[in-house]
């Protein structure tokens, strides 16, 4: 049993700390309230989307539609929620239910999640285009205020990240319900043998993913003040990368909400760091891929050592 495989959260924490230290070294001015706010500004919606993806990976599936879904939510928020709040809320609630239904159908008919979510990404994307054919809309005032609030001591993005990590940790790791949900990923047979319905639990996991996807879209609009149908397409990849960077596994229900939030922060920071490095922006995307591969390699080495020990 190696040290790292016992404390899986260490690797993401160290990665973030190293990256943060390097950023401060390159750009000492970033070490301030204002600087941190700038660095992590866009982290909140990414962290929420990462949590959403984590809910799906937790039950051994993968969601290729979360980016399109967050875009759709952003479009709904910037139009309906702004113009007719009640209707907007109803639509968002319906979207969460649709996500839960998707989970139930995937489990009940034993469909491949990869293909179903891929198909749903067309549907979400199409609806988004339908609602908002060209970029526009406006963020509801209260949302704008919420996302730009300046709490004392720490910038909004950091406070929000800590809050998200805390709430999801309590929900998924500490609560009995979250424990059962993780059990679905670990050994679904044991769950059904204990008399619980795996289909219902998967619907819950997907529903939670939908809920956090909705929060991600709203947070995004709060920051950008307007939306367009493609605003968050890259979140699909980012969210998967964030969960993995945060120490989550693809299968077996091994996820860490705190790790996922840290992973999302690391990815956000990596982009800023590379611009400080004066590395050509050409390499920004590639470096995210490289970081992902490096972390996975590191984890493989540690787990091999763990096996050998």
């Amino acid at each position: 049993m190696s040290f790292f495989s016992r404390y899986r959260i260490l690797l993401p924490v160290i990665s973030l700390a190293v990256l943060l230290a390097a950023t401060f070294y390159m750009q000492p001015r970033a070490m301030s309230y204002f600087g941190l706010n700038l660095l992590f500004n866009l982290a909140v919606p990414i962290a929420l989307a990462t949590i959403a993806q984590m809910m799906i990976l937790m039950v051994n599936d993968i969601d290729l539609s979360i980016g399109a879904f967050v875009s759709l939510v952003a479009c709904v928020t910037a139009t309906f929620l702004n113009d007719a709040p009640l209707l907007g809320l109803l639509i968002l609630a319906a979207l969460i239910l649709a996500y839960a239904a998707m989970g139930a159908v995937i489990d009940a008919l034993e469909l491949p999640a990869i293909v179903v979510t891929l198909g749903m990404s067309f549907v979400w994307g199409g609806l988004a285009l339908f609602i908002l054919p060209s970029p526009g809309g406006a963020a509801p005032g209260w949302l704008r205020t919420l996302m730009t609030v300046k709490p004392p001591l720490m910038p909004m993005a950091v406070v929000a990240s800590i809050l998200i990590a805390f709430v999801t940790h309590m929900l998924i790791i500490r609560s009995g319900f979250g424990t059962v949900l993780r059990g679905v990923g670990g050994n679904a047979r044991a769950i059904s043998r204990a008399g619980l319905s795996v289909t219902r639990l998967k619907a819950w996991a997907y529903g939670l993913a939908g809920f956090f996807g909705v929060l991600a879209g709203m947070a995004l609009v709060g920051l950008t003040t307007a939306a367009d149908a493609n605003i968050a397409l890259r979140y699909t990849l980012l969210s998967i990368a964030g969960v993995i960077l945060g120490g989550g596994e693809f299968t077996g229900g091994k996820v860490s909400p705190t790790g996922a939030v840290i992973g999302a922060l690391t990815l956000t920071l990596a982009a800023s760091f590379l611009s400080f490095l004066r590395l050509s922006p050409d390499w920004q995307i590639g470096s995210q891929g490289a970081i992902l591969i490096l972390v996975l390699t590191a984890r493989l080495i540690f787990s091999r050592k763990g096996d050998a020990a």
Partner: protein
Amino acid sequence: MSEHESVPIVTLTDAAKHFGPVRALDGVSLSVRPGDCLGLVGHNGAGKSTLVYLVNGGFAPSAGEISFSGADDAAGAGVRSVFQELSLCPNLTVAENLRISNRALTGAGWRRNARAIITESLDEIFPGHGIDPDTEVDMLPIAERQMVEIAIGFAPRGTEARLVILDEPTSSLDAGIAEQLLTHIKSYCAAGGAVIFISHMLGEVFQVASRIIVLKDGRIVAERATEDFTRQGLVEAMGHVAAEGSAGTDLAERQTGEIVIRTEQGLTARKGEIVGLSGLAGHGQAEALAKLYLSQSSNWRAGHEPKSVFVAGDRPRDGILPLWSILNNMSISFLRQIESWGFVDRAAERAKAEEWKKRIGIRTEDITNPVLSLSGGNQQKVLFARALASTAPVVIMDDPMRGVDVGTKQDVYAMIRDEAAHGRTFMWYSTETEEVCQCDRVFVFRNGEISAELVPPNITEERILEASFHMQEAS
């Protein structure tokens, strides 16, 4: 032992369970009362697991009746089972695993309660166990996982446990820990609990059981108080009536050639020999054969002359390619031998498959029919044809006679003998002792290791049973 002693926890009246034509359990009557510790023994396929699934409510009986006292179902009556295969969630901690089966654990302090309950249960059964309830299960060694599973079986989970079924609970425990478990079982039963105890360690069965039930071919063939059994008598009760025929002696006279297989584990085989693997199911025979086959073939290249071929017994998992026709399923092993420039010679493929269809008697009008249109026995014949049609000198067979009817078996035995006479080597694992008795040499497995190597005239059912069951005292 008090007033409720006379009320059985569970009663089976003429309970039977059929799977299609297979009578897994054929009319069993049985009752388990508080304070009982029932030892359940029997050879492979005797119906032990089917009986367990009837008692714990996993199966409904095909005929007969099951009743539980004071409840409608097994769970309500406090029936628990601890299985040989682990049913814990490896990603959760020990305490969290208790939450899965115990829905009464709710509220803010559930974690503390779970920790207390599981620790108490572990302390009671395995004093000095040293297991931290906050460790994730996949961090625990296999023995400790088994201990956790047993502890969860006995722990209160909203309801109290009244009957705990333990299926090979000591298979991965060392002697000291196993002794702790046996002591606990005795005190648990003395306090009015009931246990059904299944083990291949006969010493353990004699030590804890108040009553022993011997199952054979889906029926109870003996049920007596433990002190009325001798070890030898128990083994004899499990066995069949001595098999007729003289196949064994015929084979013993045969000449065999040089050694062609030798594994680290100690398996050896000579050219032209039929080597049997025996022992209770799940004691490492299938793994040994799969490992042998994988070491003789490659992930990266397949030559024109394979060293060995494999006949799977677990057809859906290891053998059948379900989307394909009979023809394609059969020919996959010899494509390399009939190809030219990488192209399949389809005429030769068809001719060879037709020839084997006739030789082995696959019942189908057309070999281009889907393989799943065949019955299980005929699917198995396709797998035999796949192996025998190849030129490989070694044939590895992993319990290939499951679900095969008697007539087919006789055909296949004859074919195997014929092929062996022509210099092919067979490694043959079978759960049916009669089959193994026809081999030239037999390796008996116990706990993943070879416990005996038998040669004629010692290849008898009795010898095999002796080597399969652990005969010494458990202590």
